């Protein structure tokens, strides 16, 4: 397990370090903003993550060893980082462009609130965001998004 995560771990560490040392001009001691994200895994478990503003969901998921692949390396050329966004948050994310929609067309279990993880960038409006990794065996239900 460990041997495959070293790189993504290093990637995430560097982005955390950047978040910590780049202080925002408006606050003397406030450092990079943290965004709370909840991932609902394919098994239905909820994983709460404190991520850095500006990170995308694919990087965050991989940094925390969640079962999300990015076959094309996050370049919007496959659909392996498909996530289902809690409808409550969906409209807060800028709309998908044509390229993303073309890939979503090929995603398994596409829903009205599906997105590609690599294209969802965390902003402060998205604090508290809940996203689910699509199930291969059953459709997601509203209660999967319920806070636990």
């Amino acid at each position, binding site marked *: *397990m460990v041997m*495959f995560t070293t790189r993504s771990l290093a990637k995430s560490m560097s982005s955390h370090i950047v978040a910590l040392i780049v202080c925002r001009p408006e606050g003397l001691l406030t450092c990079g903003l943290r965004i709370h994200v909840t991932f609902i895994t394919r098994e239905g478990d909820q994983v709460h993550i404190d991520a850095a503003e500006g990170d995308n969901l694919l990087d965050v998921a991989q940094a925390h060893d969640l079962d999300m692949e990015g076959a*094309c390396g996050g370049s919007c*050329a*496959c659909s392996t980082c498909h996530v289902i966004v809690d409808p409550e948050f969906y409209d807060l994310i800028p709309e998908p462009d044509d390229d993303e929609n073309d890939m979503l067309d*090929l995603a398994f279990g596409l829903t009205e609130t599906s997105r590609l993880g690599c294209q969802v960038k965390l902003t402060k409006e998205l604090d508290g965001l809940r996203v689910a990794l699509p199930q*291969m065996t059953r459709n997601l239900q509203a209660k999967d998004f319920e806070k636990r």
Partner: protein
Amino acid sequence: MSNQRAKLRVAIVGSGPAGFYTAYRILEKTPSGIVTVDMFEKLPVPYGLARFGVAPDHPEVKNCEEKFEEVAQSPYFTFIGNTMVGAQPLAVPSRTASFQPNHIPLSLLQQHYDAIVLSYGADSDKDLSSSVKGLELAGVYSARAFVGWYNGHPEFQDLDPDVMAGEQAVVVGHGNVALDVARILLTDVDALRKTDITEAAIAKLSENKVKRVRIVGRRGPAQASFTNKEVRELMTLTGVGFIPPEAEFMSPFLQNSPKLGRPTKRLFQLLQRGSTTSVADATKHFSFDFLLSPTSFEASEGSSHVARAKFDVMQLQGDILSKDTRVKLTGELKELPCNVGFMSVGYKTHPLAGLEDIYNDGANHLNNEGGKVCTGINAKGLYVAGWIKRGPAGVIAETMYDSFETASVILSDFEDGEIGGKSCDGWEGVKADLGDKIDWKVVSWSDWQKIDKAEKERGSKIGKEREKFTNQSDMLAVLE
């Protein structure tokens, strides 16, 4: 794990995405050292269709190779390149000037491994020679061979496609391979120069005379298999105009639009919007031509080069909006001008020798349950992944999911004690048995890294990512 002390030796046949994603999942889900994976590849170079199928202007799709490289770094992974498992199926030409396979028998692998994953894909074209005449004419090619040729596959370097005979091209088939062929024919060759397309292909394509490409399918727009990304790419090619389908093909979809699935709905929006370059301003054009089933390619009198393509005009039988609707003959015929023609009607898989009894010819794959071969005299410990498992269709994402499924079936069989723990030596055992019979260079992962480096160096001299070696002996010469 009930099988705690046992080890599992896995052989994987074929190093394309299916083989690598299976290896990845197996190694990722097991503690270090419990499982070893040996991957066999008939060519000296890995990655299968990621290297030889994915279009050169889609470099981002090849990013999956980064993950494969990571997998290959595992101390429990061994690459055995330039070594083909099983004999070449009779239906497939066995050798070309650029490639001569080195064989080892599948039965030997079965002695020396606990589990064998067949992920060798589809090795030929669906054969339409009994229903389409003139496929042997000069200027008529298999799209698969053309793609292999421009991507530098050693088996297709003799193709020498003639794209200089005239302006009119016909591509038969409505899948993404057909669109790749159309796009390569229509793209300004200068835009391809910086990709990893071969220099031989660049030289040939710079003499390309094609100005009009008809992409012809037997069924209607709702039944086409190509995806919206590839259609959009054609629509946005510089200087290329889209000649829209006749209104009869479009109107039903506008009226019934709520009924359509999302991808089809978006496809119609694309077809309706048309190309970025207007038909009037464009210097090259393409169209989608529907409900035409090919009957023959014909040459002009006294020539052996194709000049026209003939088709039966078809009609849809049933719901025109449904994906599965079939077609029937109308009795009407249609002729199109054709200076160069490509057949892109799908791939054909084959069973390895000894596995004929588990091959399903109609379904175009080996019989399996979730990736496990359950019937057949040689079935024990056999698994499948990728196109040989589910038939030759689908993008890398689908292959990834189905390879993960195969990996989890293997691991659960291991856990149940159904496989594993055999006293066998894997590749060491195979080598000991064959001895002097291995009279070829077996390419290791570090050998491949040398070839890879040499290709990148060749590329950087001419301003591209990589210049591939296109024949086996040049690949091996790097290692001398």
